[in-house]
């Protein structure tokens, strides 16, 4: 089987080689094209000159490069070069995240520690739409995806963002930004075949609907082969996902932008009988519709209004069924005040209607609940010494369903001693508000004589006081470096306490200190050769405060002490690109996962409007383990894939 697949790949390589000899120039690799000559640019009319794309990074990305926080931006170009097809895989490119693949479908993702299958301290947004579930305050990664080519860039902030984004932005904020419709005219089709991702097909069509109105619609589906158990046997967790979406942007000359976008998805996943209480497939489906309107009143002022509806449902046979409907409304206004101050304030309201169908295996009581969340924030960015010293003070105030009123203040300072050098420091308080799994959850004893678990009626918020400092610099034209350090003091963390009736009850009963370092280095060694190195180091200390707490090692999440990532990206002659990527992740202790080091390699080739890539992921070993979410771990196999894409 594998032999015939390799032959397939071999044929592609052969075809690519023939194309290479012909030496066509590629319209694809715009970012890597040779820089234009004076003569080329002078030939253009003023209008054409205004249409030349000069930077990948948006103005926002430039602002972020001066911001007093630990941020990494993943560009579409990086995603494409790495031979990546799904969103969680793309997040691995941000070295300030801890990303572990549990099986073919599930992921454990966090920043700055406390990783778990149900990680609950990371805020994830797609174009400003929060995709976390109030069921466990985390993200179902198998229901969040899109045509990967639709992504413009991904902003990954490690560290608290509660002052702006509210409860849940405790350890980090991820914002996935999709491309505006005016960039997407024409058609696009892509197909992938591989040994882990089994197949993927995607199409997109875009165009102009009228004056200043652009539109695109897309559709894609993919299937994954199963992951493997430690002995190499089939883990039977193959799955498939299909999604359709659209986006339309109205951009009149007045500087307004009205964006309406939506998507609808459906997935089916199998599971090994060993891990399932009852036979049958897990089914998920959902729909979302979002509208966002922004208006700029000038360089420093503007408003933004956003509303969305999101429905998602999930059925695990004979175990759990949930339907969640979310209604969200946000408003934001920024304006300058007295020359030196830039004020941003806003408010948001979210109603989540969570409807669970209980089973004998696990229950949420009450089965149905309306969760209301009302937030208000204000932030002042003060140019203490213009272009040199900036101070950002702000806080969000939030009324949450379970824990009531919370305040999340933050103070950040940035100093630019010279252009291209930023030293920053910050102190913030963030809150993880309880979710349904903390309060409403009931898990009856799994075996006679065992104990059950129950949500705690008195469970309140978890808190962190976070202190950060960092340095970002450019050395010459080719080297950039960012170093961030953090110290997070958590209090009131969740533990299980032994209650009466042989039941463990969720309660606030522990504190934790986590401190660490994050590094991000970029080096443009040659105009055609680029390196990116990333690393995180972490130390943790966990203290039970509650006498009654059950000592469950690893209950608070588990993270590697160190992880390293090094990527080399080459532009080769004749439209070829090659990206090699090595990663090292140190061991996890509870539950135990040995350290692993792995490598992937992707070779892309672009010819006219066609692009082909061949990639190998996790090449170091036949299979490797990244995370355990229970007694029977699944491992990630070495895999190969071929992708072809065309624009027309």
């Amino acid at each position, binding site marked *: 089987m594998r032999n015939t697949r390799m032959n397939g790949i071999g044929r592609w390589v052969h075809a690519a080689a023939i194309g290479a000899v012909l030496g066509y120039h590629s319209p694809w690799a715009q970012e890597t094209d*040779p820089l234009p000559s004076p003569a080329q640019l002078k030939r253009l009319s003023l209008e054409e000159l205004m249409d030349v794309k000069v930077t990948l990074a*948006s103005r926002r990305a430039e602002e972020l490069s001066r911001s007093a926080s630990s941020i990494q931006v993943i560009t579409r170009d990086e995603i494409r070069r790495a031979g990546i097809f799904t969103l969680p895989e793309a997040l691995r490119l941000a070295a300030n995240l801890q990303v572990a693949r549990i099986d073919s479908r599930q992921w454990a993702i966090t920043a700055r520690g406390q990783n778990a299958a149900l990680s609950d301290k990371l805020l994830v947004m797609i174009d400003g739409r929060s995709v976390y579930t109030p069921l466990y305050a985390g993200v179902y990664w198998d229901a969040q995806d899109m045509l990967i080519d639709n992504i413009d860039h991904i902003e990954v902030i490690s560290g608290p963002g509660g002052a702006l984004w509210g409860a849940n932005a405790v350890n980090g904020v991820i914002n996935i930004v999709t491309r505006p419709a005016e960039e997407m005219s024409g058609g696009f089709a892509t197909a992938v075949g591989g040994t882990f991702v089994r197949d993927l097909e995607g199409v997109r069509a875009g165009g102009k609907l009228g004056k200043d109105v652009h539109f695109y619609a897309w559709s894609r589906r993919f299937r994954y082969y199963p992951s493997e158990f430690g002995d190499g046997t089939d883990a039977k967790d193959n799955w498939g996902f299909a999604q359709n979406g659209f986006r339309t942007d109205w951009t009149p000359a007045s500087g307004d932008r009205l964006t309406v976008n939506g998507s609808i998805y459906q997935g089916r996943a199998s599971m090994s009988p060993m891990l399932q209480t009852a036979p049958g497939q897990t089914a998920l489906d959902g729909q979302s519709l979002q509208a966002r309107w922004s208006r700029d009143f000038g360089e420093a002022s503007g408003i933004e209004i956003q509303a969305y509806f999101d429905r998602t449902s999930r059925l695990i046979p004979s175990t759990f069924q949930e339907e969640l409907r979310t209604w969200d409304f946000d408003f934001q206004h920024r304006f300058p005040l007295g020359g030196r101050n830039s004020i941003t304030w806003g408010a948001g309201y979210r109603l989540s209607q969570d409807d669970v169908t209980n089973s004998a295996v696990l229950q949420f009581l009450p089965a149905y609940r309306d969760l209301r969340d009302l937030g208000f924030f204000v932030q002042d960015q003060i140019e203490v010494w213009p272009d040199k010293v900036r101070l950002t003070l702000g806080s969000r105030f939030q009324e949450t369903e379970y824990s009531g009123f919370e305040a999340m203040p933050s103070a950040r300072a940035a100093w630019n001693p010279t252009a291209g050098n930023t030293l920053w420091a910050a102190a913030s308080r963030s809150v993880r508000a309880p979710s349904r799994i903390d309060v409403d959850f009931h898990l009856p004893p799994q075996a006679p004589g065992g104990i059950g678990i129950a949500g705690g009626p008195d469970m309140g918020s978890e808190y962190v006081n976070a202190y950060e400092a960092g340095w970002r610099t450019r050395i010459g034209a080719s080297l950039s470096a960012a170093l961030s350090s953090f110290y997070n003091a958590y209090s009131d963390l969740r533990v299980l306490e032994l209650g009466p009736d042989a039941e463990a009850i969720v309660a606030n009963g522990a504190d934790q200190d986590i401190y660490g370092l994050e590094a991000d280095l970029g080096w443009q060694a040659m105009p055609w050769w680029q390196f990116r190195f990333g690393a995180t180091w972490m130390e943790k200390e966990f203290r039970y405060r509650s006498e009654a707490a059950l000592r469950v090692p690893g209950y608070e999440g588990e993270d590697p002490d160190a992880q390293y990532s090094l990527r080399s990206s080459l532009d080769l002659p004749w439209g070829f690109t090659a990206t090699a990527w090595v990663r090292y992740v140190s*061991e996890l202790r509870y539950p135990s996962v*040995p350290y692993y080091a792995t490598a992937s390699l992707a070779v892309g080739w672009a010819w006219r409007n066609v692009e082909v890539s061949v990639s190998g992921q996790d090449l170091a070993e036949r299979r490797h383990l990244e995370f355990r979410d229970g007694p029977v771990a699944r491992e990630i196999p070495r895999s190969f894939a071929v992708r072809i894409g065309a624009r027309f």
Partner: protein
Amino acid sequence: MAAARDRGPRPAPARPVPAWLPFLILLSALASGIRPARASGPVPSGPDREHRVKAVFLFNFAQFVEWPENVFAGPKDPLVIGVLGENPFDEFLDEVVKGESVREHPIVVMRFKRVEDIKECHVLFIGSGEAGRLDGDVAALKARKILTVGESRDFLAHGGMVLFVNEGGRVRFKINLDAVQEADLSVSSKLLRLADISGTAKE
């Protein structure tokens, strides 16, 4: 402290250095010997894409703006495009204007360290390196008939005339029409149509 987590004995590292590591090192060594063989020859160095486009815009501005004829001593005197302070264009701007002229005035590029050094000048680019000195720079040029072009966010607020902005990764420009008219310059309607205009003298 007493309840600090019991870390237990660490499992011994089970695996030797992965076999692919030497292969990868070899691969990078090989790769370092590879040179791009694009038809265009060696990869050009010099300014980034953004400043290349801006350089050509400066050249275009010289064509779409009219100065009162008395700013030129003679009918064939050069039209000077100046760069104040840090020069982000390298030699690129010189290449752009090489051999070009506007209404018989040959275009030349001059670099000025400080605003006091500016004698003859018609279009002046004030880079982001001058951000802290904008007030002084612009005030010193106030009475001169020089089209000032900048890229610092608050350039227009400080009395600058044309501001480059990056919109969605593209170079666009804003014009402060009040400042332009105060300097007695006239901007062609074609340029105005493409610009984002501020100032009371809006069309």
